[in-house]
């Protein structure tokens, strides 16, 4: 359990990480969210990039949804660098994660890279005592507008072995971005509630 509740301020802090291969569209997701969400609800966007405009450490954006039933949920959204050499950096960014969006690159020829990155994610989760099987995550099949892409059925077959919610997307123009975000938030909240209920039963 990584989420944090400040009972004094009724704040609930949850961390969501966008994971995926290099150039799969993780940063594009966050950029789109940043530019299309109510300005009152967002903080500054932090982007740590190389000279070639590639994510070197992470991107970060906090969303505050406001007062909901007396509670103030805050979602810290992160992306990881996708290039192979940054596996240790991805491990650092995954620290304390509550939910994951796996952004898959739909282009033909990218399935092996997608799968390798998914296994990389699983490796990091296992090191933290978690697994994809029982962790809140969703899949996004990005770049659906490109000409040479795998079918959704083929990607599902290769990546969605746990039957998690999956969304087609074109992150550059925003297609599928908000449904993906909304779905992962819903999964995280459900998972957290189950954990809290379980702990409360044990204490009773």
């Amino acid at each position, binding site marked *: 359990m990584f989420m944090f*509740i400040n009972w004094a301020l009724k704040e609930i802090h949850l961390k969501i990480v966008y994971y995926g291969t290099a150039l799969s569209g993780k940063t594009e997701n966050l950029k789109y969210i940043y530019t299309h969400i109510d300005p009152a609800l967002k903080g500054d966007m932090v982007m740590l990039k190389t000279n070639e405009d590639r994510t070197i450490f992470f991107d970060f954006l906090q969303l505050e949804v406001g007062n909901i039933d007396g509670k103030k949920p805050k979602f810290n959204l992160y992306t990881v660098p996708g290039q192979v050499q940054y596996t240790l950096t991805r491990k650092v960014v995954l620290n304390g994660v509550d939910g994951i969006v796996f952004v898959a690159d739909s282009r033909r020829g990218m399935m092996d890279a997608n799968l390798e990155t998914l296994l990389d994610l699983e490796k990091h989760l296992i090191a933290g005592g978690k697994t994809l099987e029982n962790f809140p995550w969703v899949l996004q099949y990005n770049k659906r507008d490109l000409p040479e892409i795998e079918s959704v059925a083929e990607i599902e077959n290769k990546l969605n072995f746990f039957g998690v919610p999956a969304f087609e997307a074109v992150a550059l123009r925003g297609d599928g971005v908000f449904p993906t975000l909304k779905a992962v938030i819903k999964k995280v909240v459900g998972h957290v509630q189950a954990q809290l209920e379980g702990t409360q039963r044990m204490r009773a």
Partner: protein
Amino acid sequence: MNPEPSKNAFDAVLSKEQFDRIFSCLADLAAKLRLMAVLLVDTSGRILAQRMGEGWKNTRLEGLAALSAGSFSASNEIARLLGEQGKFRMVLHEGQQRNIFMCSVGSRYFLAVVFESGTALGMIRLFTKKTVEELVPIMTDDPSSPQDLGRMFDKKFETLLGDELDRAFIDKM
């Protein structure tokens, strides 16, 4: 609110009493050292409590916390690669006018202290160490958790959250 890793969901909860005591410690530290800001942050980048100096009121510190946590966590990985038994004891970023000093509070949290360059680093280290010693017992205290915590994210909350998210997204897809 255990500064060491735990599987207990309620260890992720900061009670009002804990928060008030933590805030008081941070306020004391900030006043003693005339700090620009002091934050208690978890290693994933979430701010537990913060206290800002006069010139920094109304500044949102979430980005600073996220970057500090990244820097602090990255330094721990470097320590591991170098064969250090534990983490680096502190991380200091020194600027021309401002500095930020970070030190562990247990293995899950750290204190980030922002100060002007005229303040002696030795004083920062000394008083921060004392504050950490005050913070750890507050955070390992086990106050009674709110009875309704188990129903925090009930169906009503989920529905309302979904509605608020729909309203928040200006360009719905």
